[in-house]
Each structure stands twice: as C-alpha cells, then as structure tokens.
C-alpha cells in the first residue's frame, strides 16, 4: 500500500520536473522541494486528495515562470538539429557503411566454420576478401539494413520505460488504484 502511495507521489513529481526544466536551477530546486514537502507522507486515503488539490504539475511550473513556449522553442531547436543529423547520416552513411561492412564481413568469414584454411589453400581467391567481393552487393545490403535497424533502435526509449506516470485524476478512474481512494 505504501508503495502505491509513494508511486503516485513519484509519478506526480516526474511530471513536474520536466515542466519546471526551463526555470533557473535554484528556483526549480526550491519548487520541487516545497512540493515534495507538501506531499509529505500522507496515508493512503489522503494521497489522491493531496495530489488532486495540488493541481496540474504543468500549471504549477507555468505559475513559477517555466513558460511552456520556451520549452516548445527548445524542442523545436532540438528537432531541427535532429533533422540535420539525419540528412548527414543519409549522405555519409553510404560511404561509411560499405567500408565498415567489408571489415565485418571479413571478420565473420574468418571466424566461420564453413570456410576452412584448406579451402584457402586450394583456392587462394576464395579467401574472405574474395568471398566478400563476390557477395558484396548482397552483404552490403544486409549490413545496410542492419545499420538502419540499429539507427531505429537508437531512438529514445518510449516513456513507458519510466516509472508509471501519475495523473492525480487517475486516482478516481484507475481501477488498479481504486483501493487507495
């Protein structure tokens, strides 16, 4: 029960922190400290009431001077930078990836049990380099595809990875937390 209570408070603070990001350091710390103190350690029945009465974290941050327009401006700047990085990756990726791909293929082939030293003796041209050049178009496509996949995997983890986000109003509507209200 106590865990659920603390989870609700943590969820609330997690919403408040990013909303207050545009505030100067000292003011942000002061605000977060006060709100944390205010929530205190209420019992299970009180926590939802306390959070509901505190109100929307974004509104509190706005009142403290953390203008959402600044945040929007910041995120649009980040978005602009991301676009530039993507364009550069698209331009340079085709130059860099084949070289990296060649090295990867060479290592894989050397390590492969299907290609033995005897084969290398019999046909020196069928060494890793030759294999690599023969399967060049196919492998590089594969490497490129896996590079694309790893690019996709580089995106920030979805927010669900964070601790569950508490919206005060959910206390009333979330059946999982109904026992608290």
């Amino acid at each position, binding site marked *: 029960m106590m865990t659920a209570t603390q989870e609700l408070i943590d969820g609330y603070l997690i919403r408040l922190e990013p909303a207050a990001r545009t505030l100067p350091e000292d*003011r942000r710390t002061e605000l977060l400290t006060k709100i944390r*103190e*205010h929530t205190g350690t209420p019992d299970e029945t009180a926590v939802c009431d306390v959070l509901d009465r505190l*109100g929307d974290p974004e509104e*509190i941050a706005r009142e403290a001077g953390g203008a959402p327009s600044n945040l929007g401006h910041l995120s649009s700047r980040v978005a602009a930078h991301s676009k530039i990085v993507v364009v550069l990756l698209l331009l340079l990726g085709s130059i860099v990836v084949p070289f990296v791909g060649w090295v990867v293929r060479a290592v894989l082939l050397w390590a492969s049990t299907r290609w033995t030293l005897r084969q290398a003796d019999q046909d020196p041209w069928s060494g890793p380099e030759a294999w690599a050049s023969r399967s060049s178009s196919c492998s590089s496509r594969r490497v490129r595809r896996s590079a694309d996949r790893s690019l996709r995997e580089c995106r920030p983890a979805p927010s669900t990875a964070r601790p569950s986000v508490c919206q005060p109003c959910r206390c009333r509507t979330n059946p999982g937390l109904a026992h608290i209200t």
Partner: protein
Amino acid sequence: MELGDAQNLLTQMRRGTLPYCVLALLKDDERYGVEIIRLLGEVDSMVTSEGTVYPLLARLRRQGLVETTWRESTTGPPRRYYRLTPAGDRALDAFVGEWARFRDGVGHFIGKGTGT
C-alpha cells in the same frame, strides 16, 4: 459572455488579488506554507490549484514582500515560516486602499444595473 471568458476573467482576477490575500494572511501572524494553503482553500474559489501557491510565495519572497525562517516543528520536520517585511506591509496597505475604491466603483455601476 461565454463560459470560457468567464473562467478566464475569474483566473485573471484571482491572479491579481491572490498575492494580497496571502500578504493579508501574514499581516499579524507568521505562517508556514501548508497553513497558508489551507486557509486560502477554506474560501471557495480562491485557489483552484494549491500547488501554484508555492511559486507565488517564492515570487513574493524574491520581491522582498515576505521573508522566511526555518522553525522546528513539534509534529514533524522543520517548517519554513513566512512573515511580512516592511515593504510587504506597505504594499498590502496600498492595495487595501485601492481595492476599496475599486470595489465601490464597480459596485456603484453593478448596483445600478441590477436595481439594488
């Protein structure tokens, strides 16, 4: 007037007057944050989001209208108490005079309009 406009007007009026209500609460007594919020919350429609009172208190302190001291509490962790500064006292006095004039002015016209 649409509902949205009415809400907006109420928000604006609250924003303009709430700081002085806080100063008035501290006129004769020093109080801690949760106590101030509780007293404001006892009057209907004064505060819709209690959390916004903390930024307001911080602003009043930056403006030099209130000052704070930490005090030990018998029931829990130390509390930050707020009290009026001389500047806060003057600001409250000035507002009280202006508010009376403004209220009478509005009441003059509204009273005529409603026939009371």
